[in-house]
């Protein structure tokens, strides 16, 4: 009983960590980008200050907005946070990972997306509808690619449970080609899912080019803060997922202060590395044409699919 309580407590701590570190990750990416462009850049803590500012501001609503518009930020935030709490980042075999697998995680993210698109169309502005249409078109292609990528790992681990998959990844002693394919596919999907360059530009002010931002143009105050925060959590979620599936070294397999501290340090170091990679990518690339995005996502899907084929051809029975 006491053991279970400790595990739940750790789970709670892990989820809070995701919640609290998410804005920092956004700050780190921005800082790296600024340095890469010879700019000084804002403080690492700027995203926290932005959130605080938004929370203390008044929320304005269009006259024709319904309850959907007001409820959506809460749903989006909660669903994203729940999805984030499923990913093992410090300790494996936590209760949330036991009761919800990677399919549940994808479903929670889809729920958040469904609500954001719904809210975008609720007020009936042209930008909202345009953004929602783009988001749904691309997510229909991104989700299969993402699931397929994760399933490649599931095939090896014989489970869709993330903790089991982390154990599998920790015990990989030689390079599995299928894993490389899955990693490539998931990296591509993560860029698209988080609205980063070359798919979407999170810093643009040009409404006509937006995907994600176009849907939230009408939000303000604490409602906007929740959505922004959820987007930051989502970025951290994808970063953590990639780390846990493909580079989980250091993660605590037993419960104790030292393993947890080591796991924390390792996770954070890897997050910073990924942030640097994102910043590099975003500084080096231009946005692709909108009509090229389906090709991009299809490439990710094909990579994941190849990973699956490679797994059956080369790896089944090898272990």
């Amino acid at each position, binding site marked *: 009983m006491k053991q279970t309580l400790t595990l739940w407590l750790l789970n709670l701590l892990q989820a809070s960590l995701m919640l609290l570190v998410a804005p920092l990750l956004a700050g780190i990416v921005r800082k790296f*980008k600024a340095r*890469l*462009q*010879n*700019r000084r850049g804002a403080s690492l803590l700027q995203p926290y200050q932005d959130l605080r500012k938004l929370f203390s501001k008044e929320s304005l609503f269009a006259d024709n907005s319904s309850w959907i518009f007001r409820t959506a930020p809460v749903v989006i935030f909660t669903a994203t946070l729940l999805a984030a709490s499923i990913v093992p980042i410090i300790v494996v075999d936590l209760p949330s990972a036991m009761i919800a697998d990677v399919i549940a995680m994808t479903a929670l993210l889809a729920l958040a997306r469904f609500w954001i698109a719904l809210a975008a169309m609720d007020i009936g502005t*042209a*930008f909202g*509808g*345009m953004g929602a249409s*783009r988001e749904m078109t691309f997510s229909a292609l991104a989700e299969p690619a993402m699931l397929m990528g994760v399933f490649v790992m599931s095939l090896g681990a014989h489970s869709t449970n993330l903790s089991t998959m982390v154990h599998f990844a920790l015990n990989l002693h030689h390079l599995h080609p299928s894993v490389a394919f899955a990693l490539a596919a998931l990296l591509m999907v993560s860029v698209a899912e988080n609205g980063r*360059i*070359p798919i979407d*530009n999170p*810093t*643009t*002010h*040009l*409404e*006509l*080019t937006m995907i994600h931002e176009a849907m939230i*143009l009408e939000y303000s105050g604490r409602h906007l803060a929740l959505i922004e925060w959820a987007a930051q959590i989502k970025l951290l979620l994808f970063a953590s997922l990639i780390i846990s599936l493909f580079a989980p070294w250091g993660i605590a397999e037993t419960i104790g202060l030292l393993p947890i501290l080591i796991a924390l340090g390792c996770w954070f170091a890897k997050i910073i590395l990924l942030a640097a990679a994102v910043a590099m990518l*975003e*500084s*080096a*690339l*231009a*946005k*692709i*044409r*909108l*009509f090229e995005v389906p090709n991009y996502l299809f490439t990710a899907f094909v990579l994941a699919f190849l990973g699956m084929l490679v797994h059956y051809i080369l790896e089944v029975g090898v272990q």
Partner: protein
Amino acid sequence: MTTEITYNSWFAEKMNDNGIHSQWLTDHHPASMPCLQIRLLDWAHTARLARQLHMRFTALWAAEGGQHDEHTLYTYMIFAHSEHRHVMIRTPLRSNEPTVASITSHYMAALRMERSMQDMFGITVEGLPDQRHWLKHQHWPEDAHPLRSDFPADTTMPYCDGQYPFIKAEGSGVYEIPVGPIHAGIIEPGHFRFLAVGEQILNMEERLGYVHKGIEKRLQGMQAEQAIRLASRASGDMTVAYGWAFARACEQASKIEPPARANHIRAILCERERLANHIGDIGAICNDAAFSFMQAQMQRLREDLARLHQQLFGHRMMMDLIVPGGVSVDIDKHAQQLLLEQTQQIAAEVEQLRAIYADHAGIQERVIGSGVVTPEEADAIGLTGYAGRASGLHVDERVEEAYPPYDQLQVRIPEGKLGDVATRVWVRFEEVAEAARIIATLLASMPAGDICNPWTPPEAGVSGIASIESWRGEIICWARFGIDGRIDRCTLHDPSEVNWLGLELAVRSVPVPDFPLNNKSFNCSYSGNDL
């Protein structure tokens, strides 16, 4: 003072051959471009003849007559030709119910100028295919015509409920995207109405006129020394070119030539302005495709230019340095050295960045083939500036009118033909290099002497005209003086008046999210379009 006649008698002869009666008005009109008066009934024929002779239409405006002639309205137009000087044509309108025939069927660019003329003067333009208001706000009273002399500048206009009917499209899947007039970025206000199917633009319609400041009205009654400060604020990013155009129009009227040194300094300032704006815009175009590296680098270079201007001239954008008669600031030996070093260093850095831009597959993929204006289309609307030079219209006032000091220089015009975003960017890179070369040449051949000749206004009724190649394209300024040396009537024509049409044409074949990239590649002025 005798002036050699260099004006365009060629067109007058052609008109005569075609049975159009015309008469030179040398009194009260600048010797450089005297006015050819024609009969009202020949107005549209003249435009048709000019089109047949492949002349370029540059401006159209209306004005009430000068002293002792206040009750007659005149309409003016200017045609340009690559081998002959510009020709200015005017015709008097009937005093009751002023009416003039539309020339839009010959020159598309005249459409919005004719609509403005209807709005501002209440002149009826017959045969105008688009009878909607242009600059006049829909909530202004129907009978308010602000530029007429019987309309006091301090009139308070009552709110009248009005509508601006946009072009509609129907069909399944067709939808409208209204954008603006207030945009998310720090840019000027303007409304764009998109008709789209999915992500494909069917039509984009501009609705400008949100920045009406009454500059033309306010200029009336000002002394030239004050008026130039207002005129050079018509569009802040072209302040040097606007100042030069206004000063030159005044100087033409009072037959003052600025000293050679002043002309050199004016050209140096104007080329520096070209450099700064082209560099800033190239960065902004790349940023619209999320290639932020280029934006950061170009903004840094632009900032360097602005800081040196602040240091040498006391103003980052070089405002109010040009005055009627010359310039108000000298460029001494030390400043010459600083300007030369910085210009050359920046041009070299731009060349390095240009290599990165040219090798970057991502940005090239976005700009090549996007937003094409073919040479035929460009010729039909008469695009100016880099937009024209990217689409086969290789015209430049620095070559055509060759006003000093460009008469001593060989300005190389980049000759683009493909008319897409990539070509417009290419033209600007070329012009950066050319501007740097011109600045170096001018600095090396700086004449000694005064920087300003004393300004004396001309007698009442005398007018002057100037066309100056700003970084955006040609600015045309026509000014007429009244009593006490005050401006009686002044009109300023921004290159954007024509180039906005080019943007509408360019985006017919692009997807919705490529619009900002195209918009930035034209970068038309909102303010200069709506004085």
